[in-house]
């Protein structure tokens, strides 16, 4: 390696292109889903344990704050899903050029935003 090559690993000084933002958002949402797993398992537990716990959970779901949390979890799931589908499409060789990558990243943001709004409408 040529030692004189400039090295810049200070991420805060780098302007992120749309593809990088799509990529890091995929990672961040992935970590967020991991953190949400116990909430989802707890909800599954409450929904199946007894008719009473099911009713309690349903009652809890009427609270705006709880709705916001559920919406947030579904939002990160939907983004991760859409960005993941783009990965699978790119694995087949589609959208691998620089322009294709940019277009795909923008599409992921647009499609997931629409889905997140739709699922928000369903929750409320």
């Amino acid at each position: 390696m040529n030692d004189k090559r400039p090295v810049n690993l200070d991420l805060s000084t780098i302007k992120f292109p749309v593809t990088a933002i799509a990529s890091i958002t995929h990672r961040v949402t992935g970590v967020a889903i991991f953190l949400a797993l116990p909430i989802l398992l707890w909800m599954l537990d409450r929904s199946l344990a007894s008719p009473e716990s099911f009713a309690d959970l349903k009652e809890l779901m009427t609270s705006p704050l709880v709705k916001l949390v559920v919406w947030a979890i579904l939002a990160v799931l939907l983004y991760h899903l859409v960005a993941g589908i783009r990965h699978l499409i790119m694995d087949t060789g589609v959208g691998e050029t620089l322009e294709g990558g940019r277009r795909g990243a923008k599409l992921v943001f647009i499609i997931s935003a629409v889905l997140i709004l739709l699922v928000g409408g369903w929750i409320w």
Partner: protein
Amino acid sequence: MVTPVTSLGRNGLYDWLIQRVSAVIIGVYLIGMLGYLMCTGDLDYGSWKAFMGSVCMQIANTLLVIAVAAHTWVGLWGVTTDYLTSLTFGKAATGVRLIAQVAIALALVVYLLWGLVLIWGGA
């Protein structure tokens, strides 16, 4: 070449495949479950319990929790090996990364077992 001892498939190509197969299982499940919940409307306990207790859903749910555990492990392994390095933690990096990875692995095993108990009706 050193084989990474903490990666799920012990090599990158195998992890790559696990990541994609599990992704498809989770994706199909998520779309199907959201579709079911949206189309069913006002769900009551009896039909939800019967639906989740059907052999079909017990198998789908089992596939789901196994896929989530594997997918999350491959994903978070990538995240921990990218960010918990000597660049950020110096000499302590290996220890920090190993502790984080063991904690994540334990959490995933607990979630997997919890999920299986819920699916197969132990509780």
